[in-house]
C-alpha cells in the first residue's frame, strides 16, 4: 500500500504520531477511491447508455457472473502461466545480459543495436510477426519476453555501473577476495536496480500478454475473453475482465514484494 505525505495538512487537534499519520494516509487513499467511483457513477448516469459506459454496480455484477463461469479459472490461469513463463525467461536472460553489459563495454556495444532495435519496434509489429511465426499460445510469451528483456537488461547494467568505484578501490587496497567483493559490494549495490527492473517488467508483462492474447486468440486467456466481449458489444464484460487484469497486476506486484521481504528478511537474520 502506498503511503501519502501531505505536509502542512496537520490538524492541531490530531496528534502527529506515526500511527495517526498512517491512518490519515489510508483515509485519504480510501477517499480518493470513493471519489473516482462517484465520478464513474455520475458519468454513467449522465451518458445513460450501458453499451458506452456501464455503472460500477453493473460491472461488479458482471464480474461476479464471469467469476462463477466454469472457464473463468482456466482463462485466468492460462494468462498467468503465459505471464510467468515470459517474465521468468526475460528475468533470467535479462539479468545475465545486464551483468555482462554492465561489466564490459565490448558486450555493451555488441548488444546495443539489438536492444535499441527491440525497444524501437512497435509492440503491434512484434505481435503481428509473432502471429506469423508461432502457435497462438506461444505468441504472448514471446512478445512479453521481447518487451521486458531490454528493460531488465538496461536496469541491471546501470546498477552494475553505479557500483561505487571508491568501494571497489578500497576492496583492492585491502586485497579482498573476488567472492567477497561480489557478495559484499556488487550484489548489495545492484539489488535495488534488479528489484526495480523486475517490478517494472512484471507490470509490463501483464499488459503485453493481454494485448497479444487479444490479437492471437488462444483458446483461453483474459485477452481472448476481452476480445469476445468486445465483439459481442458486452461493454460491462469488457470492464469486468479489465478489472480482473488490474487485480492480477496488483496481486502479482504485492506477491513480488512479499516474496522479496521474506528473502531479504531471512538474509539479514543469518548474517
Amino acid at each position, binding site marked *: 500500500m502506498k503511503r501519502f505525505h501531505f505536509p502542512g495538512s496537520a490538524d492541531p487537534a490530531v496528534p502527529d504520531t506515526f500511527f495517526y499519520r498512517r491512518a490519515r494516509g489510508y483515509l485519504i487513499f480510501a477517499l480518493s477511491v470513493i471519489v473516482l467511483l462517484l465520478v464513474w457513477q455520475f458519468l454513467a448516469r449522465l451518458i445513460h447508455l450501458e453499451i458506452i459506459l456501464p455503472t460500477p454496480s453493473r460491472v461488479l455484477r458482471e464480474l461476479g457472473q464471469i467469476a462463477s463461469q466454469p472457464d473463468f479459472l482456466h482463462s485466468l490461469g492460462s494468462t498467468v502461466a503465459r505471464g510467468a513463463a515470459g517474465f521468468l525467461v526475460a528475468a533470467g536472460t535479462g539479468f545475465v545480459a545486464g551483468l555482462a553489459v554492465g561489466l564490459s563495454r565490448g558486450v555493451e556495444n555488441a548488444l546495443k543495436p539489438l536492444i535499441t532495435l527491440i525497444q524501437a519496434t512497435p509492440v503491434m509489429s512484434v505481435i503481428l510477426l509473432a502471429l506469423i511465426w508461432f502457435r497462438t499460445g506461444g505468441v504472448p510469451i514471446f512478445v512479453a519476453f521481447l518487451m521486458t528483456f531490454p528493460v531488465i537488461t538496461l536496469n541491471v547494467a546501470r546498477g552494475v555501473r553505479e557500483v561505487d568505484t*571508491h*568501494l571497489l*578501490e*578500497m576492496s*583492492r*587496497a*585491502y*586485497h*579482498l*577476495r573476488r567472492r*567477497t567483493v561480489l557478495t*559484499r*559490494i556488487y550484489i*548489495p549495490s545492484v539489488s535495488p536496480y534488479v528489484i526495480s527492473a523486475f517490478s517494472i517488467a512484471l507490470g509490463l508483462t501483464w499488459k503485453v500478454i493481454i494485448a497479444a492474447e487479444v490479437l492471437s486468440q488462444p483458446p483461453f486467456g483474459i485477452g481472448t475473453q476481452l476480445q469476445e466481449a468486445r465483439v459481442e458489444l458486452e461493454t460491462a464484460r469488457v470492464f469486468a475482465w479489465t478489472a480482473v487484469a488490474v487485480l492480477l497486476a496488483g496481486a502479482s506486484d504485492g506477491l513480488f514484494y512479499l516474496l522479496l521481504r521474506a528473502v531479504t528478511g531471512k538474509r539479514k537474520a543469518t*548474517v
Partner: protein
Amino acid sequence: MRISGIHKSFGTLKVLDGVSIDVTEGMVTAILGPSGCGKTTLLRICAGLVEPDQAPDASLVQLRSQRAAFLFQEPRLLPWDTAAENVELVLQDLAPQDRRSVASRLLDEVGLSGYGGYYPPELSGGMKQRVAMARCFAYPAAVLYMDEPFQGLDLELKLSLFDTFRSLNFQEPPPGDTGASGPRTVIFVTHDVTEAALLGDHVYVFSPRPATVRHRVDNPVPMNERALQNAAVRDFEGQLYGMILTQG
C-alpha cells in the same frame, strides 16, 4: 627506503616530475602540498593502485610487497553493513569468532563501544571516519597510507582522531599480524600545515603541479609530546608556513 625519481602523466597532464622521498620504517612521512599537486597520485603509486610512467624500481617493488592498510579521504564504508561488519570485512583470514573479537576491540579503542550494530548512514561523519580507522588498524599491515583522512572534520574532532591514531599506531599489533611489529611505516598526505606539524616525523613540502620536492624537514618534537599548546610544534608549523609562502 628511498622512493626515487617518480614521474607520472595523465595524457598531456604532467602530475609528478621526478619526485623522490625517503620513507623511514616505523615513522610518519608527511607529504604537504597544495590541493591537486599530485601528492595523492604519489601515494597511490606507492600503494600499487596506480602505475608510474617508468617501471617500478627495486625499492618501490619492496614497498609495494609489504601489506598495507588505508585511510582514505572518505570513510569508504559499506552502507549496507554495520560498523562491526565493516571492520570484520578486512579480516577474511581469521576465524569468524576472532574476527568478531578483533572488530569489537578496535571499535572500543576508537571510542565507538556500543556502536558496532549501527549502519554507516546512522553515524556522523567523524564516527564513520573512526570506523574506517578501526578497520584500518584491524588489518594486519606493516605500512599505512593516509590520504587526507581528516579533511573536512572540525578541529576538536581532528585532534581527538589524532590521539586515537597515535594510541593505535604505538600499541601491540593485532593477532594474525604478518610479522611486522611496533609502529607502522606511515605515508601521510595532507594540504593542512597543522596536520603535518602534529603527525609528520619527516615532512616533505611539495610544489604545485607538476609536483617536485621543495623541502624536507624533520619534526623537532617527538610524537608523544606533540600538541597544539606546545610552542615547539607551533614554531615548526610556522616554519612550514614560511616554506609554503616563499614558494612563489
